[in-house]
């Protein structure tokens, strides 16, 4: 065994974070560690790296690398393993390279430490092996001059340069779009096979894990609840939690079905400590009295008393009746273009972010804009809400021309369209209370305190947050709750059109399912149109009626979601779909 953990326990103070985790990873195998945020999956990587946060400590069990005790070996010997025998691929490629040093400098430093001769040639070979074009030119460039996908390739090349025996990849593609994700995964698998490297692949994406892993271990609340051969786990989940994760994830093919959203959230560490019996029982559909008394041990497949009932958990296949879509257009865009001037004083150049966009969003219609990063989809959203001024074309909102900035256009725009931003962390003012945040739209109209309070109560009820959340600040909310508040703020004055930029990317599948269900419900209750900017085709297919496919600033295909996904006309659409379903 390259990596072997036996009843590994990690605690934060007296609160258990990892409980009796058993893992084994043989040479050349890929083990997927699947779980949602807070399940403790990244903690295992941190134990291996000896980078536990302050107050966290290993309190029991063993962890060996190729037979050597990783927990007890002297620090110098442990450090000698890092980078050489155990390599790490990070989650955020853009920030994992030093911004003030060239790629060549950082590569050279790494190879020098590994004692590799002819470092320039070795670096070029390594960069070539991850299919980066012009490796020689790359060496003299800085990280900010590269895309996220390119940075991740560089980091993968660095990780495999030492021909390590173990690679730990912690959510290596979460920050990347779907096409880049597929290409990065291909590169990683290719190198893994070529070198026979063992890989510990940490992810929240069950589907992705099943695609590249030999084995899978599913973590819930700090413990392994299911393990097995990847194919089996995906085809026949034994633990209800695994099954629910699967049902929360919208499928890319087959009939559209309703999503299953796990109630509540995974219990916090302290809360979980107080739970008697199975920690999943409070959220489990098939739990019985025994489940609340006995904490089931991990069997050959799952830690569950009722595995035989797991396959019975299902969601209705029948497509929920789509609310009717109006005939009048809430948004009409024609010939819209945006050029950005780039370059210095003497070298003027233009970067075309959006060109010749023509489309319509009807009242109550959910339309998606898909494309990889840099395709101009976010710029399109910013143009529509007036954060950017177009270079050419026309934007009609509810029959009124709002193309050019004017006070009248601004007023009309504010009343008609609202935007939900991608990152709720930075979109919500950390110093304001939730009640003030969600009723921000009333502030400009000078609404009174009482009116705002009562509207805040209504909004919180609609997005499924408890009433007392009104008095909290965003820091006291979870990621999913913050995104709900973000949506509630946009809905406050009932706009006819909502523009949402990647609002579910980076969230756990169960939280994503909760939000998708919430949006669908709000749609039937309030009948608004939505322009969803997303790179997640499965989400788009689940939620939207029509889709616009963008590439390099241009809408290359648009049509009904079902038609486009079943029968893509443009080559690029086919490429996107292939990448997503690979």
């Amino acid at each position, binding site marked *: 065994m390259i990596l072997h953990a036996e009843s590994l326990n990690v605690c934060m103070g007296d609160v258990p974070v990892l409980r009796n985790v058993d893992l084994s990873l043989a040479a050349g195998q890929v083990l997927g560690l699947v779980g949602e945020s807070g399940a403790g999956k990244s903690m295992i990587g941190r134990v291996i*790296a000896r*980078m536990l946060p302050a107050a966290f400590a290993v309190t029991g069990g063993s962890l060996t690398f190729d037979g050597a005790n990783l927990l007890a070996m002297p620090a110098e010997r442990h*450090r000698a393993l*890092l980078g050489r025998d155990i390599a790490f691929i990070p989650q*955020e490629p853009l920030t994992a390279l*030093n*911004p003030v040093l*060239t790629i060549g400098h950082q590569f050279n430093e*790494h190879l020098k430490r590994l004692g590799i001769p002819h470092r320039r040639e070795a670096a070029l070979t390594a960069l070539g092996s991850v299919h980066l074009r012009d490796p020689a030119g790359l060496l003299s460039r800085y990280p900010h*001059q590269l895309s996220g996908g390119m940075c991740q390739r560089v980091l993968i090349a660095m990780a495999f340069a030492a021909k390590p025996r173990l690679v730990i990849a912690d959510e290596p593609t979460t920050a990347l779009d779907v096409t880049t994700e597929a290409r990065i995964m291909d590169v990683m698998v290719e190198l893994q096979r070529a070198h026979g490297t063992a890989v510990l692949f940490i992810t929240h994406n069950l589907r992705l894990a099943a695609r590249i892993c030999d084995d899978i271990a599913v973590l819930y609340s700090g413990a392994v609840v299911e393990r097995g051969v990847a194919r089996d786990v995906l085809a026949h989940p034994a633990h209800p939690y695994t099954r629910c994760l699967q049902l929360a994830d919208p499928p890319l093919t087959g009939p559209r079905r309703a999503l299953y959203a796990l109630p509540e959230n995974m219990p916090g560490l302290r809360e979980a400590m107080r739970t008697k019996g199975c920690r999943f029982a409070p959220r489990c559909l098939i739990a019985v009295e025994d489940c609340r008394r006995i904490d089931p041990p991990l069997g050959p497949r799952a830690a569950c008393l009722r595995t035989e009932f797991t396959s019975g958990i299902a969601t209705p296949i029948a497509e929920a009746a789509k609310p009717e879509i109006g005939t009048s257009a809430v948004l009409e865009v024609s010939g819209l273009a945006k050029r950005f001037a780039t370059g210095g004083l003497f070298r003027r150049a233009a970067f075309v972010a959006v060109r010749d966009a023509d489309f319509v969003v009807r009242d109550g219609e959910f339309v998606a804009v898909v494309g990889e990063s840099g395709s101009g989809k976010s710029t399109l959203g910013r143009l529509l809400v007036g954060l950017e001024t177009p270079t050419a074309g026309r934007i009609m909102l509810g029959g009124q021309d709002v193309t050019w900035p004017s006070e009248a256009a601004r007023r009309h725009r504010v009343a008609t369209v609202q935007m939900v931003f991608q990152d709720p962390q930075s979109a919500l003012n950390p110093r304001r209370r939730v009640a003030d945040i969600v009723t921000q739209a009333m502030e400009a109209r000078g609404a009174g305190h009482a009116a705002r309070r009562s509207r805040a109560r209504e909004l919180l009820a609609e997005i499924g947050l408890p009433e007392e959340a009104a008095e909290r600040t965003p820091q006291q909310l979870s990621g999913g709750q913050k995104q709900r508040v973000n949506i509630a703020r946009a809905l406050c004055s009932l706009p006819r059109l909502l523009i949402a930029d990647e609002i579910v990317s980076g969230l756990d599948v169960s939280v994503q399912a909760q939000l998708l269900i919430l949006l669908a419900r709000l749609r039937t209750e309030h009948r608004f149109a939505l322009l969803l900017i997303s790179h997640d085709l499965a989400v788009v297919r689940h939620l939207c009626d029509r889709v616009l496919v963008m590439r390099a600033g241009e809408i290359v295909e648009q049509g009904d979601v079902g038609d486009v996904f079943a029968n893509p006309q443009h080559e690029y659409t086919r490429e996107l779909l292939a990448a997503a379903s690979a």
Partner: protein
Amino acid sequence: MLLILGRRALSAIPILFVVSLLLFVALRVLPVDPAAMSMPPSATLAEIDAMRSQMGLDRPLLEQYGIWLGQAAHGDFGQSLHLRRPVLRLVADTLPATIELAVAAMLVASVLGVGGGLLLFTLRGRRSELVVETGTTVLMSVPEFLWALLFIFVFGVLLHALPFTGRLDASLPRPDKTGFLLLDAILVGRADVLWSALAHLVLPAVALGLAFAPPIMRVLRSSLLDVYHDDYIRQARLRGLSEGRILWRHALKNAALPMLTLMGVQFGFLFGGSLLIEVIYSYPGLGNLMVDAVRNADLPIIQIVGLTYCVLVLAINTLVDALYVVLNPKLRGR
């Protein structure tokens, strides 16, 4: 790079105009009569009036400024009323001394600041951090003139270890080449002159530098703490790099950027701070010239010294901007 410097130099011109206008107006509005000051006490009122119109002081303010500007464009910034010498000559004589002092003080501040910042950073989370931090707070709360007086008392009067007036021993000849004494001493090859000049520079430079070191320490420490939260530091550790290498090769260059901004701002303040120090150490620099001029209401000198400070600050800012571009690749052409 050159483009950035050129652009900065161009943008300095309007700033200089505005500052010169402000200085001119402020000095003319003051209830001081340069005409009366420049005449012997026995002069009659009529004589003073004649002098006033001869000096152009009875004309409208803006016209006076125009005349001054015209002459300034030809390199004539006027005569000192008191010393009866061209003010440009006076500034040229004293400026090198002040620059020498300020650069030496900045050197002291940088060495202490960077050293202290690194010390504070490596002690983070330990009990000794508190001791060092209290020390820097004490350093910071003592103003430079107090250090100056303290040093004179301890090293000059009590220990007789170091001289504390002027730039050079009176017995030594003053080499006159560039005005920068240390440089001149090396140019003429006089070790004794160099030694004496250095000994004279130590106390004022340390007194001035000491006051400016603590902010550098703190900014360096806190930006190092920030940088250590960044992913690339963690990734460097995961590659198995040593902690020393991570600090010197990876963290310091990133943490230096905010520190550099601070040091640029401080260098400007330092010229202001040198004024008091020069007076205390009877150091023949721009500061002493300025103080004498203020005492004698010598307007042309005050004016040109003010402008000189302005030029110095602008030059330093430009230099810091250029350095910033060198250190931060994101600011270089995209």
